[in-house]
C-alpha cells in the first residue's frame, strides 16, 4: 500500500482509492462465502463487495441477537450452583 493512501490529510472526505478497492476486494473475497463461491470470471464490483460486507455483518449481528435470546432462556433454567455451572467454570479456568 502506498504511503499516500495511509495519510489522513482529508479526514472524513477522503475517498477510497482504486488500490484500496482492489486490496479490499481480494481480502473480502476470502472472507465472504457469497463471493468466494462464485466463479472467478470477472472483477467483482466494489459496490457489490461493500454490499455483501454490509449483509455479512448485519447477519452476524442478527445471530448475536438470536443467540443472546437463546442463551437467556437456557441460562434461566440453570442453577448457578449446579453441576453444569461448575463444569463450565472448570472448563474455562
Amino acid at each position, binding site marked *: 500500500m502506498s504511503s499516500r493512501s495511509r495519510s*489522513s490529510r482529508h479526514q472524513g472526505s477522503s*475517498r*477510497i482509492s482504486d488500490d484500496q478497492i482492489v486490496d479490499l476486494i481480494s481480502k473480502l473475497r476470502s472472507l465472504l462465502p457469497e463471493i468466494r463461491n462464485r466463479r472467478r470470471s470477472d472483477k467483482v464490483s466494489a459496490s457489490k463487495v461493500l454490499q455483501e460486507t454490509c449483509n455479512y455483518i448485519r447477519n*452476524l449481528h442478527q*445471530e448475536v441477537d438470536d443467540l*443472546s435470546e437463546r442463551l437467556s*432462556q437456557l*441460562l434461566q*433454567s440453570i442453577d448457578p450452583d449446579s453441576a453444569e455451572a461448575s463444569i463450565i467454570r472448570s472448563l474455562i479456568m
Partner: protein
Amino acid sequence: MMHNPSKVKQKILKKFIMGLRSCNSSHENLSVSERRRIIKLSADLALASVRNGSRRWSRAIIEEASRSPDNKGLVQQMLGSDGDNHLPGPIPWEGRSDRNGAGHVTKSKSVVAASSKKIVKRCRRVRRSNGRAPRRNEAASIAKRLVKKRTQLLKDFVPGGRDMDDVSLIEETLDYMVWLRAQVDVMRALACSLPTTSS
C-alpha cells in the same frame, strides 16, 4: 488477521462467562429481555476487551457501553481485571444518542434502493441535456456514487464507523468481520453445550 483462532475464542469465552456469572449472581429476578440485553452486552464487551482496544471498533464498543449508567458495573468488572484496556484519546461522541447498540443498522433497504433510483434518474437527465455524453464516464460516476452510498451504509454496521474516514473504515471493517465471527462462534458453542432440560 487472527493468528490462533481457537486461543482467541477461549479468551472470549472466558470473558463472556465472567459477564454471565455476574448476571446470574447479582440479579435474581431478571426479565428475559433484560437478561438477553446483559448477555449480548457481555458478549460484545468480551470481544472488545479481548481485542484489547488496539482497534477503534473495540474502543467504540466499550465507549458506547460505558455511556449508560446501567452498564457501568459490568464494564468495570469485565475490563477492570486487566487494567485499562482501551487507549485514551479524544472520542468525539458528544450528542450522538441515536444508537442503542454497537454497530446496529438504523437504515433500511428502501433507503438504499431509493438512493440508487435517484442516481439513475440523475444520469438520465444528464444524458438528455448532453446528448453526446460518453456512456463510460456515466457508468464510472454511477459506480463511484454507489460505492460512496454503500460506504456510508457500512459506517452504520461497524462500531465507531461514523467517525472514521473511508480508509480507516475499510481496515476496521476487515478486522471487525473476523472478530465478530469469532464472537458468534463462541456464543453458539456455549448455547449448544448448555443442557436444554426444562425446569
